[in-house]
């Protein structure tokens, strides 16, 4: 992979844009020079369907003029005049829109950092690993699945490298190198006699790691009813288990609808955290900026101001964190030049804060931004995006086995499945990959057709126990969607296995 543009040239280009914006009357400007690389290796059974390398280079310029935001982006921009012209366009757009603005933008102060850089702490750059090694891995994964009872298997490796240069009129010139990886598969088992099929997806997590995530390390494995993984993923072993489990699902018992105590593995719970905590506490949603698309939020400012809104039980501590090593959200600075940090969202069950960026901080009385502004491309406008939001592990020692031992009628859910939540984040429904019935403290067998429905506040208040930090693992979303035009963002969510009492479970089997 060839190196990107030299940092000295990027600074020169950025200065051309900043100066042009200022000379046209901008009170603030920032420039993002981005080179975005992706690689996909896509296979099914014994075939490589495609290997794709993508590269996108361009510049996005954002300004404030007459108190209003304006943005312009330009593809393949390598000379100063192109950037100056784009900056002028951004100022013209800001001025046109200022006529419709009610209140001028208020930016939280941010000191400049000068010329600085940050690089994801990866051990092995996935883009430098020979393609043959990746192909061989996926084909051996597929082979293992087929040998263990799968009829079909699709597997993929996604790799992302964002080379981002940020400069602003605050005096920051920030060069960052971000890496992400996601190995994934889906196996299908078919019963031709009944015409039924069942699937099982990988229990991997997308992470802010290099190819080192695929180096098998026994200490990263948690054994149990099925093996789950921490910072090292044994894809071959998981595919073997997946094939057997998909087959087992074909004859598994269909769940009886009713109330159950749920034991949720981190490979599942991350998505429930994402939807029912991460999104409702985005301040732009709370204020109504996402009303036309993703929606607003039940977690309104009056609830936060009351200092008495019980989001969850006393066990529940939810933390926003842009620093967590190996997570999808970790960077040195966000996409508006703010240094990243860690803060509480829900403390001992109480709602204490939101996620806010520079033009929102004043609304919640913060003196500075939380540093969670992001754009998915040079061509997209940066806006508030979810930091990693995680559930703190329990403080008293507790293993998964000890947790299950106390459950009379429950379901143990592993892996994420179907997910849906309303536009104010009250009512949700989640599926999963693997469901095990718990009867009188013991796992009684596999279930299928399971989904649970609840209300966010009710659900988090039914949280009674959280396993300790030995069980803490990250899950995450590689492509979380928000905004118009929609942008994707990658975000991790950590937790230990957690128990929720008396949750409503429905049976999803139908006949067509």
């Amino acid at each position, binding site marked *: 992979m060839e190196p990107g543009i030299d940092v000295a040239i990027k600074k020169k280009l950025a200065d051309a844009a900043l100066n042009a914006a200022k000379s046209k009357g901008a009170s603030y400007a920032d420039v993002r020079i981005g080179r975005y690389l992706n690689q996909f290796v896509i296979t099914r059974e014994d*075939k*490589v*369907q*495609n*290997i*794709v*390398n*993508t*590269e*996108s*280079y361009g510049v996005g310029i954002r300004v404030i003029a007459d108190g209003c*935001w*304006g943005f*312009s*982006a*330009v*593809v*393949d921009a390598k000379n100063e005049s192109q950037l100056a012209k784009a900056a002028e366009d*951004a100022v013209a*757009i800001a001025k*046109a829109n200022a*006529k*419709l603005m*009610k209140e001028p933008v208020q930016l939280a102060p941010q000191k400049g950092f000068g010329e600085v850089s940050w690089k994801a702490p990866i051990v092995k750059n996935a883009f430098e690993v020979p393609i*043959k090694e990746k*192909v061989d891995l996926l*084909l051996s994964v597929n082979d293992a699945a087929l040998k263990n009872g799968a009829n079909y298997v699709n597997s993929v490796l996604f790799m992302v490298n964002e080379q981002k240069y940020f400069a602003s009129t605050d005096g920051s010139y920030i060069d960052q190198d971000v890496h992400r990886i996601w190995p994934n598969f889906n196996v*299908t088992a*078919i019963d*031709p006699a009944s*015409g039924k*099929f069942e*699937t099982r997806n990988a229990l991997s997590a997308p992470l802010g790691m290099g190819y080192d995530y695929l180096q098998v390390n026994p200490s990263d494995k948690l054994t149990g009813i099925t093996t789950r993984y921490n910072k090292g993923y044994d894809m071959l072993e998981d595919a073997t288990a997946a094939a057997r489990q998909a087959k087992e699902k074909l004859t598994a018992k269909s769940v009886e609808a009713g109330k159950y105590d749920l034991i949720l593995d981190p490979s599942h719970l991350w998505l429930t955290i994402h939807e029912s905590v991460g999104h409702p506490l985005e301040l732009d949603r709370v204020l*109504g*900026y*996402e*009303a*036309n698309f993703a*929606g607003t939020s039940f977690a309104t400012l009056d609830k936060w101001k009351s200092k008495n809104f019980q989001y969850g039980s006393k066990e529940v501590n939810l933390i926003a964190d842009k620093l967590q090593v190996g997570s999808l959200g970790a960077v040195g600075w966000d996409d508006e030049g703010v240094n990243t940090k860690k803060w509480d969202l829900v403390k001992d069950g109480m709602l204490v804060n939101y996620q806010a960026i520079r033009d929102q901080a004043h609304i919640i009385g913060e003196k500075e931004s939380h540093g969670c502004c992001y754009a998915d491309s040079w*061509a997209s406008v940066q806006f508030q995006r979810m930091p990693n939001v995680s559930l703190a592990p329990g403080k008293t020692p507790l293993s998964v086995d000890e947790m299950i031992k106390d459950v009379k009628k429950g379901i143990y859910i592993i892996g994420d499945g*179907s*997910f*849906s*939540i*309303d*536009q*104010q*984040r*009250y*009512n949700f*429904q989640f599926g999963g990959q693997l469901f095990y019935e718990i009867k009188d403290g013991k796992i009684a067998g596999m279930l299928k057709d399971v989904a649970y*429905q609840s209300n966010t506040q009710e659900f988090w208040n039914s949280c009674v126990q959280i396993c300790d930090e030995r069980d803490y693992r990250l899950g995450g979303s590689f492509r979380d969607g928000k905004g*118009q*035009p929609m942008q994707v963002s990658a975000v991790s969510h950590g937790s230990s296995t957690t128990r929720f009492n008396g949750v*409503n479970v*429905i049976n*999803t089997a*139908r*006949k*067509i």
Partner: protein
Amino acid sequence: MAILSKEEAKRIIDKVLAFSKADEMSVILSGNRTGNIRYARNSVSTSGETEDLSLSVTSVFGKKSGTSTINEFDDSSLEKSVRRAEEIAGLAPDNPEYLPVLGPQQYLETNSFAESTANIKPDYRAKAAFDSIDPCAKKNLTAAGYMEDTAGFSAIGNSKGLFGYNQSTSVGFSVTVRTADGTGSGYAARDYNDVSKLSTLSATEVAMQKALASSSAKAIEPGKYTVILEPTAGVDLLQNMMRSMDARNGDEGRSFLGKKGGGTRLGEKLFDERVTIYSDPQNPEIPGSPFAGDGRPQEKVVWVENGVVKNMYYSRFWAEKKGVKAIPSPSAFIFQGGSQSLAEMIKSTERGILVTRLWYIRAVDPQTLLYTGLTRDGTFYIENGQIKYPVKNFRFNESPVIMLNNLEAMGKPVRAGGNLIPPLKIRDFTFTSLSDAV
């Protein structure tokens, strides 16, 4: 720069093809200029304009292929992209399912480009937003909306002499209007190729009416109800079903069209006999691309006729294996409806629920096409032919296949999300819980 003419696009594609050392090569070149304006809380929040131009090169040696994309267009970048695709192809193992690229094809004229949309300027977008915000502000309502316009082209070419070029435009507008006390919310969405058909004011008036009428909704028990799904509500479920009509998945027994014992349900009557669904790239309301990504021509195809599955889409490999015509998947579909207006459908309903919009739709079971999601932005109880009162939103768990067997009536199709969809009256639609969301 981002919207190249046919000649300019051909020149670049020919140049790229000339760099090739592979057995075969195919190229996709596309570019667009897209502009948008977004507003919320009755004020513009973001607005911008972006140009992009992108080249995708697929090189093939024997049955080994590799793809590389780039958006830099100087000669050395173009050559670099070709070498990269060749390098990847050289490293890939044989794909036994690879078929040689197609030779030259004949494509239909689709008229998907409108000058009016291509000429949109920032002032136009600001006015469109003003026309939506102003009436809301005057009535103490809060508008959040978004308009996006795109003008672009797509060109394809390959080493066997195939070449295709198409220009297209599109504009999409949506608005959510909320009451000041947050107890009512309404929505409207429009999309066209030609922006002269768009009135952001009239769409906003629909959303305003729904916001006011949906205020202080009553809770009624979830369960099975007769529903009238407005086109904006029905489109996603129907689109999801149409995306599941791949023949290979059916033959492999992993789709709702797989048959017990093997094969597909092609030729079987799966829906009410009034259900007919087709696609037509030349339809003047929803003109589409004349070609699929792999160069196959898009033509008029009937997918479901009088409730019977008439066609499924095929990859070229699977069609050859099965000895049938390789029909590509369409970019949009047309659900042939009836002639009733929405008002007439409400009038003929004894008891039912009118649904403006469905939200956060996700697959629950691919075998039965069971989906879950929620109603949103205007849900109303109908009794004796009249809208009686707004009701709280519901979560549903329902399959479009079951829905289209429980069909009561269909109205006149309108454009929704790029498709033509009628309002649909469906009996026994399954709501499984209530939501407090407004």
